[in-house]
């Protein structure tokens, strides 16, 4: 592909998340793309809209005992247990490589208390190469008996405010789908200052081994991801995009450019590719290519024309 074509392509696909300009709407989902370097042999990383790194906590975490993953019908369960190197080693060992890449880096952060989230945001402020924070609020709040931050609008808002206060980059809050009404959390988080929302995180699921009569995951329950959850993700993105005015990043079972475009029609400004990276390490870049081809073939001025362009007719189609 020559320079002119590539430039045109990038231009057609540009989107904004808060003050951040992405050359295209395709990001990689946290926990499914390592720290990007793992994929350098498969993907031209600078062709991506951005990279979201594995969730980082203040202290290193060893994660859960094995087995941590199990395949399910059109999906997989994971109970990685948020294994990560901790924010200090992340800054020292992972950020230099990421900072050298010509691609926005979203740092996914997680904590067990509002204070932990706040300290993470403070520590990451001013670090070169950090383009945005993505706040994972699906973790249990240890101070409040373990209910997830993501299922209580007040707790979700408190985390958002604390992170916003310290951060010098756009703050995206990543919503959990394991709630009765995702728009309630979405509105609370928007009101607390989030620059964007990403959804969905995994659905809570479980798998049983009939042979051993034990759960297939050592942690008993895990997070369901992959094509199986796409219909739930699309529905929630659609609902949230209509409920808030900040940009929404769609996640859940995206494996092709068509999948990604469906989320954009439903109201997403950008998307994240997760489990598909495991099946096809080139998935994210191929989705960028497919999206560019679609914009071209449909004679769209820009991908932005498609955001939320889903037509809803009254009383049937």
């Amino acid at each position, binding site marked *: 592909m020559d320079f002119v074509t590539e430039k045109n392509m990038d231009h057609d696909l540009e989107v904004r998340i808060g003050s951040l300009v992405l050359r295209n709407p395709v990001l990689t989902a946290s926990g499914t*793309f390592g720290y990007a370097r793992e994929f350098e*042999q498969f993907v031209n990383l600078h062709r991506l809209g951005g990279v979201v790194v594995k969730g980082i906590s203040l202290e290193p975490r060893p994660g859960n005992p094995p087995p941590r993953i199990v395949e399910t019908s059109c999906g997989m369960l994971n109970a990685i247990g948020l294994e990560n190197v901790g924010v200090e080693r992340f800054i020292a060992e992972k950020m230099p490589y990421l900072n050298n890449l010509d691609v926005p880096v979203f740092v996914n952060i997680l904590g067990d208390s509002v204070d932990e989230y706040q300290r993470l945001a403070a520590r990451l402020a001013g670090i070169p190469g950090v383009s945005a924070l993505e706040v994972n609020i699906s973790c249990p709040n240890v101070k409040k008996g373990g209910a997830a931050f993501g299922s209580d609008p007040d707790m979700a808002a408190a985390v958002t405010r604390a992170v916003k206060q310290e951060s010098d980059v756009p703050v995206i809050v990543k919503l959990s789908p394991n709630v009765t009404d995702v728009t309630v959390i979405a509105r609370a988080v928007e009101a607390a200052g989030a620059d964007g929302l990403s959804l969905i995180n995994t659905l809570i699921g479980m798998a049983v081994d009939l042979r051993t009569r034990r759960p297939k995951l050592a942690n008993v329950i895990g997070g369901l991801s*992959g094509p199986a959850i796409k219909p739930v993700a699309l529905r929630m993105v659609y609902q949230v995009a209509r409920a808030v005015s900040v940009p929404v990043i769609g996640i859940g079972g995206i494996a092709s450019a068509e999948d990604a475009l469906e989320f954009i029609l439903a109201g997403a400004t950008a998307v994240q590719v997760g489990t598909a990276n*495991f099946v096809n390490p080139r998935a994210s870049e191929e989705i960028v290519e497919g999206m560019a081809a679609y914009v071209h073939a449909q004679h769209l001025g820009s991908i932005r024309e498609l955001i939320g362009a889903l037509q809803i007719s009254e009383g049937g189609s």
Partner: protein
Amino acid sequence: MNQIQEKVQLIRSERLTADIFRLTLASQAIAASAAPGQFVMVRTGTAHDPLLRRPFSIYQTSSDGTFQIVFKVIGRGTTLLAHCREGEELSVLGPLGRGYRLEQKGQNILVGGGMGIAPMLFLAKRLLKKTALQEPPQVLLGARNKEELQPMLVDFQALGVRVLTATDDGSLGHHGLVTDRLRKLHPAPESMVYCCGPKPMMAAVAMICRERSLACQVSVETAMACGMGACLGCTIPLQDGSYGHACSDGPVFDAERILWTL
């Protein structure tokens, strides 16, 4: 590391036993760069079910730009793979992981059990190529019965290495465990034991080696989603209390690093 993902042609599919198959796949890149103990991740379907790739050790490579895997039919993925026909294309990712560290000093003892025999052929061939070796590798192979052992055994015999066998039912070689045969060997202190097989077997081999102060490398098996260090799903508990990742830190580990839980 030079990993690639490509569609490769299935050149040959051989049914070795009722449920063991050997596939010959065309990939110049993988054949050229793979090392013993490394593996490939193979897509077994075209739709989203089964979703994930399946890992298989590289059985051997050939200078004609092909490589082989040998697998047993276990579940849905391997059933689909067994039904693939010659001429079809398969999506393969590899070579992946850290293979065996090849030693030059003492004797080289290869211990394979069940489908854990698969990576041993490639290893034996590479060791044979090392001109500095004082003596050819000693191979110990164990399986449930003659039917399961024979098809891979002949490939080792063709190499000219010394092979000792054991079967659970005594239908071929020693009637019992391959570890019985290992216990009877008295290798020089600088020897290296290379092992792959079921977890209990590898734990036993590791223990024998520790007792005799022999170096030992094992290739572990875990569930894997990505095979390239991205999902952190392939955890293996280590002696130091930390976790290793089978796909990127392994699948081959020094046996003494592993925390053997059974």
